[in-house]
């Protein structure tokens, strides 16, 4: 489903140049849940950004369902991401001027999916926020915001879901609830999950755990 070959990424130039990823090779199967763990600065968030097409690699290839992300133009990546990927960020990242319902609706209507409104309402119901649909992000708690973000990420039934420390900004109890929900939904929809986390317990809820150290897989 996803194949990463000799992926390299560095930041800065000259003496200040830092090589964050040093030739990553990785294969991810469809429906697999994969946890990327590692210390701060090990390059796991950078790897996730490259896999989700949020940034460009220096060299190497990322192939998803036979499409090479690294050779696509920026706009092609954007369109591909909209149709095939869902992303959950650590800081929720909801569009501040859209309500909870509209945030979920956004990726669906962007792809002009049929019954978008109904799907979004159902998803919001599934994450337990049906009554909060017309609330703006500023009126939601952290846990609620993250549940909206998950509903939005899964709305288009993506081939692959990227989650970057999704419970990192939540208290333990809320974090657990949100992660339970995430794993349930991923399982129900058989979505491939790539999860970046520090939390070893959380990582072990995934089928596969990969350690990243100084930009290389160990």
């Amino acid at each position, binding site marked *: 489903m996803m194949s990463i070959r000799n992926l390299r990424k560095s930041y800065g130039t000259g003496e200040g140049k830092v090589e964050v990823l040093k030739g990553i090779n990785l294969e991810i199967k469809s429906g697999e849940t994969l946890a990327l763990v590692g210390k701060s600065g090990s390059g796991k968030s950078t790897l996730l*950004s490259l896999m*989700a097409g*949020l*940034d*460009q690699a220096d060299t190497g290839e990322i192939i998803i369902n036979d499409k090479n992300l690294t050779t696509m133009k*920026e*706009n092609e990546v*954007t*369109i591909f*991401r*909209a*149709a095939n990927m869902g*992303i959950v*960020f650590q*800081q929720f*990242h*909801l*569009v*501040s*001027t*859209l309500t909870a319902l*509209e945030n979920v*609706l*956004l*990726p669906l*209507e*962007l*792809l*002009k999916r049929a019954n*978008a*409104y109904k799907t979004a309402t159902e998803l919001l119901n599934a994450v337990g926020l049906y009554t909060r649909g017309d609330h*703006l992000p500023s009126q939601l708690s*952290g846990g609620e915001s993250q549940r909206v973000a998950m509903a*939005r990420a899964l709305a288009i039934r993506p081939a692959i879901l990227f989650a970057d420390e999704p419970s990192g*900004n939540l208290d333990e109890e809320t974090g657990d609830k949100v992660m339970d929900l995430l794993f349930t939904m991923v399982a129900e929809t058989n979505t491939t999950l790539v999860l970046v986390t520090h939390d070893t317990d959380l990582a072990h809820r995934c089928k596969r755990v990969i350690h990243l150290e100084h930009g290389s897989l160990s």
Partner: protein
Amino acid sequence: MIFRFFFIRELKKFPVFFFLLSFTILLGSLGLTGISIVSQEVREKLQSRAHELLTSDFAVTARRDLNPKEKEVLASTFKDIPHDHYRIVDIYSMITHLKAQQSRLAEIRSVEPGFPFFGKITLKEGKFSAEGLFISKDLESLWKVGMGDELQIGEIKIKVAGIVEDDSSLGLRGFSLAPRIYLPLKELERSGLLRPGATGSYAYHYRMPGITPARLSTLKSSIYKDIKDSGVKVVLPEDSSEQTGRVIENLTNFMSLSALIGLILSLVGIFYLYQSHLLARLKDLCLINLYGLSKSAILLGIIGQFSAIFLFVFILQILIIVPAYHLIMPTLSESLGLDLEGGINFKSVLQQLPFLYVLSLSILTPLLLGLMRTPMSTMLKAAKISMGRFRFYDFIPFVLLLWGFAWYLSNSLKTGNIFFFCLVVVFLLSTIIILGAQWVLRRFIAGKGLLMPTIEAGVAFRNLTRSGHKLTLSFLSLAMGATLISLILQLDHMIQGELALDENRPGLFVFDIQEEQIDELTEFSASQGTPLEAVTPMIRARLQNINGKKYVRKKNTSKIRNTREDDEENRQRNTGLNLTYRGYLSPSEKIVEGEPFPVRNSDEERLPLISLEKRWAQRMGLSIGDLVTFDIQGVELEGKVHNIREVKWTSFYPNFFVSVEPGYLDGAPKTYLAVLGAGFKQKKTEFQRSTVMKFPNISFIDVEEMVGKLSTLFQKSRAAIQVISLLSLSVGLVILYGLSHDQVYRRYYDLALMKSLGFSSNRLRLNLIFEFGTLFLGAMGVGLFLGWLMAQLIGKEVFKLPFSVNWAGLLWPGLVLSILCLATILVSSWRAVRAKPRELLSDS
């Protein structure tokens, strides 16, 4: 630490912010400083020439010759003071160039030997004396009249003895009604032009070597004590320069208000720039607070930083203005007809500086208070750092200072108030419109999906309704900027239109017609195919009592500067007035309060009824039912105010502040005014010449020529105002960039997010165009409309101008500004739209 943090590191780290801030302050205050410098120079030049303008140390003037008793007062006042004196009589009359067989109006200054005590009349050839006829070089070029040519003045014929090249007693060249000629006073007396009621001024001038200004003031008081007629005025050198400077003063006051518009826009810009900057720096500010720097020390640092920038900009301004002033000085001297010199006095600029600084600083008050309300120590733990909110009332100090500054700059409580309240009305109307539009839009999008019909538009509509007060403020700033630009353009159009040729306007304005000449002149003009119209008597009078209380000469004892209304009231109180009697309304007047004069029963015993011009009545505090007593050449006439009229003065029909019901003043000594209809352009010159030959004392004003003169004056003022308007517009554009940049900065986070969710760069741009295009077009539409509305109100109330629409003045600025706004948004958002989503998300 404060110095290092706020002055060195900040400057190094945010050069763009400091550049934009300095540029905004510079553009906003440049106009005001420039105007201040130029008006100060003109004022000083006129003051330094005060003695030359008056030509003596002391003058006693009246619109009639002094009576024997008044002459006795002067004789006894100056009895023990060594002095020289002469008389000057200034009248406007027709003169005829006999060789060319042409007649035209001239200002005849008739003088006695000794003139001038101060200053110099320089001739092209030869030397000036009070014994010959000398004409101005303007008349020479207009008429091709030269030395030795014969002119007819009244009943005398006299040869030109010289051409005046330079006349130090002229204030602002080009601002006079007609070219000036010098004639010996004894010749004027022979000419037969000094008939009772002739339009002129009689002055007794004195030179008193070694006299002190204090002594002059004592003499002035003493004469005022002994001569009660407020129509007799004592003029000191400083009064003379003040009169001349009033034209410039009024112009600069209005220009200052136009420049204030630029300043307000720049203050909005400063507010936004600092808001964005403080938001970007908030994390660091919270950190230095955490490490021990108190909030008040942080505020002090910000105020100090702003003050330093303000001072730097002020110095920069001076460095720009000094060479610029030298560059425009020749043009300015030419336009004003005043020989300005190289040196610049910064007194007025330095006087203005504290006001400007405090006003500019006051716009930061809401932000500084918002910073004070920020829980800095806990903010670092929050998911998203945000500044404490400022409240509506935080703007009160700024608003009050702005009001005060409008008074100061306009030198008029009335104009300052009108300006300020217009701003308030525009602000309130714009607020109502944007809030109303947001309410309607909210209703429209409720319960609907994002496709309206495109997702870009759907998201844009939501942003427009949910972006809170920042978007409202952007709308208001843009709308107010557009209002002010539109106001300037529309008023300009209206005044231009008013000065354009009007077929209904009379061709000639006739004055100084003696009573016994009326029938003959009417017959004569009818025989020439140009019948006399609007024949109106004019009677010289003096306001004596209001409701039985004596109306006295007002002493100006105030040490502080007078407002324009004070000066106006003093002038009204201290001068006599001309009134008329007529039972009908001229085509250029209408009753706005009260009823027309009723038909009078001949045996009815009652006070005469009086009609007053609206603004004059307001100035004098008169209303319907008030009793007013006039002294008409020694005879008292008491009347009752019966109605109030509005008069369109630019019609050039004979109109008066005071009109008395017919039947009471028919026997009073008077002259007549009349007009001759338009449409006889070719015959106009011939008609004037033949009338003057028959009636030498009658004078004409060529209305077309007069309007042309006014138009030229207006063009000069307009050019100056346009420079200021352009400056304001430039400030507006810089501010626009700041606003757009700020709006995009706030959207960085959402833009990045939408990109990560699948919006391509083009779709993001389209979304921005939808959102800001609607905002800008709305703001422009509202602003341009309100500016037009204000122009109509001001035009109607102040200038009595008819309703008009300058479509080009509405559409072009609207189009240009909207395109510029959108271009600004696209430029500002270029980086955000093109950047990688990861980069933006980490930035946020």
